[in-house]
């Protein structure tokens, strides 16, 4: 599971955010391509990419001899959704809660019979 702390820590660095921006601009880049855009040693870029990968923000895929890096914004989306969700929860009435728990039961029941 994605650890929120890892996501926040990964985002709390200018170089790492810049790397994500580069991938947002063009997904699927090699270390060499990314390294070219940063004033940093290859080792430094590798270290940053590793932090991003551990946070689930970057996904790597082998293509032939190359290792390509892809931006995965899903963990950011999840943090966003959780906050919206939490904020909304303060406003929902008991009735809505009841509706949701009933629907949840329906879902698990349906899954069992499926």
């Amino acid at each position, binding site marked *: 599971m994605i650890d929120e702390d890892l996501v926040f820590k990964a985002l709390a660095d200018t170089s790492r955010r810049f790397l994500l921006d580069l991938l947002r601009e063009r997904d699927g880049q090699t270390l060499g391509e990314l390294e070219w855009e940063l004033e940093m040693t290859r080792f430094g870029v590798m270290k940053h990419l590793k932090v991003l990968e551990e946070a689930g923000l970057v996904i790597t895929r082998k293509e032939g001899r190359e290792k390509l890096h892809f931006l995965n914004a899903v963990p950011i989306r*999840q943090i966003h959704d959780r906050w919206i969700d939490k904020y909304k929860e303060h406003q929902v009435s008991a009735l809505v809660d009841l509706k949701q728990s009933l629907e949840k039961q329906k879902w698990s029941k349906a899954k069992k019979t499926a």
Partner: protein
Amino acid sequence: MVEGKKDSVTHVHRIYIRASAQAIWDAITDPEWNGKYGYQAVQEYELKPGGKYRAIANEGMKQYGLPETIIDGEILEVKPPFKLVQSYRWHFSPEHVAEGFTKLTYEITPTSAGFCSLTITHDATGAPLMSAATQTPFNEQGGGGWDWILSDLKSLLETGKTMGA
């Protein structure tokens, strides 16, 4: 922009879900469930190579003037409940139709810790409109793309709640 890398445009999206591979597979391929999250359009899958895929406009989409079939495609590979490869084309506008088919790969991988990873690889080469639209943040016009769909799918499977419900 660095030259090279063909003109390939691929995006990868991954989420971890506390649910069985079968439950995730059903949530994607079963019309009973796949209309409940994300953009809430029911999708029909003919689960065999060469089989048809289509997403049907919901009432809101029809009122908005979208056609009955909003997305179509063909099933290319089926390995239930772990892998599904399909082609995928939007019918939101004539421009989208003209972009032609892109390729979607769903991969569900169980872990020993009792949850699964779900990875969507979208090869949107040659479809710049679709590629850009699936990368936009959520907005009232229906942005959000795969990140939003996956996050909502996870909510549905883990809590029974979706953002839209």
